[in-house]
């Protein structure tokens, strides 16, 4: 079920009413109900893959339980933790990466002929997200950061919690699991702020991201017909499309979770106002970058090793993070691209910035430079194949077509797209420098009505999947 579908607009109020007015007698009942609702939400797409999510949940729950049982026996606990990691990664590997690696192998050694070897399985939606969330639990129990739960339902509900099931934020068990254990009290302010955040997320997805997608898809799905301006615009538009799409999803997830009495972590903090690549990764997809930091980068040694090793750790972490995004060499290179950039930043001893710093006009050159680097990265990320990547970079500055350059996009539509970008930037800018204080209620109400009108008159209502669903 998609957040931007009619089904979800029927599903959410029903679940909300049942949750607060029927199953509100105790926490256990609410957890059971959340689990049923979450499995319905996921099974709506393909019920067969519920077996997979249940199996992943069971393995992680059982390993957490066994690790606690063998707490005194370090080797056994380690083996159990390793076994759980291997099983989970094996499932992820088979469903997401098997065909990719076999095809790549065949391309190099068998002349591209891999037909008999490929599994051609549909990628289960959100498998990378819930696998990582489940893994974080057993690793944290093993590291003694978390007491394992004996309540299977609670744990299954934590892994499958529908607001963040398919595209995050990838929650840590240390933050979310305790919330399933305690009684939930929500007040009017929490619910309305949750609904407002979800509405803004929906606006970003349906109005900004899906409208920008028209231009982006036309160009990126047929790159060889374009050069110069269309490629530049497509890269810039995709930069904002993916931001509006993914941060929109996160806002809906966080807002929806809040109306059920749960607090999810912030996933984006105005990433395009970053002054360095390091700062960008502290602001972009925070739940994933912090996951990689805690469970890959630090175990590799982090920065408490030799200089060369530290650089290697950065490169390995970001390359793996690229591969996490998808089974395609474009994602691997995209990850490596950031690994190299972070090493360069480190080599040139560029200053690390705190994300809480307020924006000043003298930040602008650094913000622009970082933004340009990020746009180039997104072109790599969006390209369908490696040959498309080389074509884009080879032809992006060959200006031999008009400013808009795409026959199916009118001037009016193009201007509207620029206005959407302006709107997104303005909101981020205001969040960064102006609106640290609470907005007056009248403005909040007005904004809600404007967003509703905006969605109804400009939104794309044909169900468009969220970009990060494929990961």
């Amino acid at each position, binding site marked *: 079920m998609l957040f931007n579908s009619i089904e979800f607009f029927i599903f959410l109020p029903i679940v909300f009413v049942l949750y607060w007015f029927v199953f509100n007698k105790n926490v256990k009942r609410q957890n059971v109900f959340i689990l049923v609702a979450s499995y319905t939400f996921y099974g709506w797409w393909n019920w067969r893959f519920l077996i997979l999510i249940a199996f992943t949940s069971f393995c992680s729950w059982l390993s957490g339980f066994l690790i606690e049982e063998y707490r005194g026996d370090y080797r056994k606990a380690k083996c159990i933790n390793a076994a759980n990691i291997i099983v989970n990664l094996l499932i992820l590997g088979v469903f997401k990466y098997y065909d990719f690696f076999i095809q790549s192998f065949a391309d190099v050694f068998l002349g591209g002929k891999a037909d008999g070897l490929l599994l051609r399985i549909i990628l289960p939606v959100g498998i990378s997200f819930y696998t990582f969330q489940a893994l974080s639990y057993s690793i944290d129990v093993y590291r003694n950061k978390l007491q394992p739960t004996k309540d299977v339902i609670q744990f299954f509900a934590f892994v499958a919690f529908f607001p963040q099931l398919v595209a995050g934020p990838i929650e840590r068990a240390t933050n979310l699991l305790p919330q399933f254990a305690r009684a939930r009290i929500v007040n009017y302010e929490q619910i309305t702020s949750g609904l407002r955040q979800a509405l803004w997320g929906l606006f970003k997805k349906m109005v900004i991201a899906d409208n920008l997608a028209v231009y982006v898809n036309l160009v990126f799905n047929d790159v060889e*017909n374009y050069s110069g301006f269309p490629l530049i615009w497509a890269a810039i538009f995709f930069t904002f499309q993916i931001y509006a799409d993914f941060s929109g999803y996160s806002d809906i997830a966080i807002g929806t979770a809040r109306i059920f009495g749960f607090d999810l972590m912030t996933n984006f903090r105005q990433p395009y106002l970053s002054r360095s690549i390091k700062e960008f990764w502290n602001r972009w997809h925070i739940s994933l970058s912090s996951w990689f930091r805690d469970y890959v980068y630090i175990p590799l040694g982090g920065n408490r090793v030799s200089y060369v090793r530290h650089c290697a750790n950065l490169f390995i972490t970001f390359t793996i993070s690229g591969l996490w995004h998808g089974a395609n060499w474009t994602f691997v290179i995209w990850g490596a691209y950031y690994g190299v950039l972070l090493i360069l930043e480190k080599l040139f001893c560029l200053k690390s910035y705190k994300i809480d710093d307020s924006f000043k006009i003298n930040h602008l050159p650094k913000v622009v430079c970082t933004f340009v680097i990020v746009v180039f990265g997104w072109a790599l990320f969006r390209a369908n194949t490696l040959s498309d990547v080389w074509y884009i970079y080879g032809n992006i500055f060959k200006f031999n077509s008009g400013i808009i350059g795409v*026959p199916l996009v009118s001037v009016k539509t193009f201007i509207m797209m620029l206005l959407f970008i302006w709107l997104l930037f303005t909101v981020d800018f205001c969040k960064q420098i102006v609106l640290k204080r609470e907005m007056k209620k009248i403005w909040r109400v007005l904004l809600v009505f404007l967003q*509703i009108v905006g969605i109804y008159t400009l939104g794309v209502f044909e169900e468009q999947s969220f970009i990060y669903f494929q990961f």
Partner: protein
Amino acid sequence: MRLNNKHRFCVEIAAVALFIAVMIFVLELLFCGVPTRIDYLYAGIHQSNDNIELAIVGNSHAGAIGKPSLLGLRRDCVENYSVGGQDLFHIYLVVDELIKCKKALKYIVLFVDYDMLGYSLIETNQRYTDREYYKYADTMQDMSLANRLMATSNFFRCNREFSMLTKKYKQVEEEKTSKREKYEDNYIPIATTDDAGEACKRRALEMTSIKFRSSLVEENKLILQHIIDLVSSSDMTLILVVPPKRQCFYDYADSANSQISKCELYKMMKSNSNVCFVDMYENQNFCDDDFVDADHPNSQGVDKIGLIITNEYFNDKYKRSF
């Protein structure tokens, strides 16, 4: 595990719901009765002029033909029911309606470009056009719940285009209709500036590459076969025309895609001998002066097309009689 301030919350939710309901109601009221291109098309089909013997259907290339005298029929026995940018699925819906409504109809002249075999309105982000047909055909390419709901809304049928509420829009549409009614010769020589060449290139790429999806060929072939079967089961004659293009179009067209479609179309015609097939793609009788742009004929071009269709039809009929 409690929900505080229930009353306040319910009141505000009700206020938002009321706002949404009022907004939808007002927009529906504003757009009620605003005719779209498809409304004009179906109004033409439902007109009670039972003398129509030949109907021209297709996209803008068919539209450019106007209402010429074809197969020796008088102009008032010919009607053009084409819509710019139409794909084969929606042409099928129009042909179906024509057969139901036009009792005197004997011939259907269907303009099919090669690239139409790889083309769909939905793939080119024109779903709103798909919704416009739902009122009449009760079916659409995208029959999802959301699309069906939108298809029943006046606001969404008009593609949420507020300019359609202006007097100017109505004037332009009425002018277009009256121009079609009184088709007059207006010979316009082709522009020979560099811009025209660039426009020609863009058009060729748009039609044969950007809008073309080879994955749609099989589906479109099936739809075309449905059209052929529908017409032949109604004892009518289908004349399938591949319209000509200007030379520069051929120069820039994606020849691989055109070739795929050409092969498929010829294979189909081989197994459908009841269809009169007139292929004018790369016909040497046409020159640049026969077009207003890359692929739309002017009146001089229309005369040539009319003559070729008539000759080919009688020639084909003659051959079939043996």
